[in-house]
């Protein structure tokens, strides 16, 4: 049973579902590459969320059935997808006008690091001559809300939540909420406030795995402090 004890927290698909739960009916949302992409498959029934893909479409639908892939119908990760009724195609310049102009209700993105102030590092590891910025910087400055959806720690076990990012920034002060396999954490003017713990996760367990101070929502509410984001 040791194995089970180690597996606290949400699986990737549970994490995606937890994010999806917070996306409101009628929102326009961009999903980044990686775990965020899974969110498309777990939108609660009866809710219309219009997904945006930065290569130029609104109304992204589920993966096509095997054999029905169309390489002219792909998402930002270049994977075949489908278009929902009501969807539309447009150019990259129109797509980023939409992003930069503040028209998306939320962007759900991955991260290398996020600071306690909401600084995001997601496009480059230090000393890499390349980097893969893509649309990440535009999404973080443009979307009305930036949600991160990521593993709480790196494969080496290091906290991705830090006091100050040591990786090159995607944008400063841009993240509103962090969803990890362990918790849902809001970036507020009062610091990082834990909104929800995943099954089997205690506040102590979470803080031990987080390289920045966390506040407990319950404590905050008891103290009557205002939670803003």
């Amino acid at each position, binding site marked *: 049973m040791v194995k089970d004890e180690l597996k606290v927290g949400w699986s990737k698909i549970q994490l995606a579902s937890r994010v999806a739960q917070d996306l409101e009916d009628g929102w326009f949302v961009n999903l980044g590459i990686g775990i965020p992409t899974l969110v498309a498959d777990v939108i609660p029934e009866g809710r*219309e969320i219009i997904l945006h893909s930065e290569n130029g479409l609104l109304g992204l639908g589920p993966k096509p059935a095997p054999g029905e892939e169309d390489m002219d119908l792909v998402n930002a990760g270049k994977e075949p997808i489908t278009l929902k009724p009501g969807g539309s195609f447009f150019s990259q310049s129109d797509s980023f006008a939409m992003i930069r*102009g503040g028209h998306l209700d939320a962007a759900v993105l991955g991260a290398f690091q996020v600071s306690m102030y909401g600084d995001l590092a997601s496009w480059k590891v230090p000393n890499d001559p390349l980097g893969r910025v893509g649309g990440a910087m535009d999404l973080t400055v443009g979307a009305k809300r930036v949600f991160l959806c990521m593993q709480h720690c790196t494969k080496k076990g290091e906290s991705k939540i830090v006091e100050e990012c040591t990786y090159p920034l995607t944008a400063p002060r841009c993240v509103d909420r962090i969803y990890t396999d362990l918790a849902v954490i809001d970036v507020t003017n009062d610091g990082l406030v834990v909104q929800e713990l995943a099954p089997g996760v205690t506040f102590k367990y979470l803080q031990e795995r987080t390289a920045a101070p966390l506040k407990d929502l319950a404590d905050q509410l008891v103290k009557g402090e205002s939670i803003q984001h």
Partner: protein
Amino acid sequence: MIQKKFENIAKAVADIHDGATLLVGGFGGSGLPSHLIAALVEQGAKNLTVVSNNIGAVSDGVAALISNNQVKKIICSFPVGPHADDLIARLQNGAIELEISPQGTLAERIRAGGSGIPAFYTPTAAHTELGAGKETRVFNGRLHVLEYAITGDYAFIKGHRADRWGNLVYNKTQRNFNPVMATAARITIAEVDEIVEVGELDPENIATQSVYVHRLVKLVTLREEEVLANG
């Protein structure tokens, strides 16, 4: 479920506040959201800043808001026409302020507003009265002026067909300023000839995407009015 259709045009414009900035599409009478304008005349909001290309070309355009004393400032490229008399009178007595922007600069300022670009440089109007007093800069040996983005609290646009998500297609040159103004307002309200089922509009041919339209009003045709009147 997304449903942007308002059954009542009065409700669609009810919250427009005094002092709001309003973008009004159309080029002369073509693509002009004249029913929304009429509803706003009825609603009565005052001290509006109105951004629209033509003022005075037709009587049921921005001229109607001016004549009803609802406008404190106009930004346009073409403030003349057969219905410009009330504008001229109000300019002369100082009741209205007029800002003339060249047509392409006006369109680009609105696009910038919708695209998150706060300012850009353009060669248009450099060395002219309309560029006077503006910040300038030389690029590639040519003088350019710095122009600032325009955004609106509301946009009134006219489309041909829509779906309940807010996707729009236009009819011919009805398009003009409508797609660009749709992108640049906090609340974009479209009057359309027809509302079709989601999925009926060709996804390759949606000129204004659902994300830009917040409220839809379907124009009632004369035939439909008869049916309504006869109960």
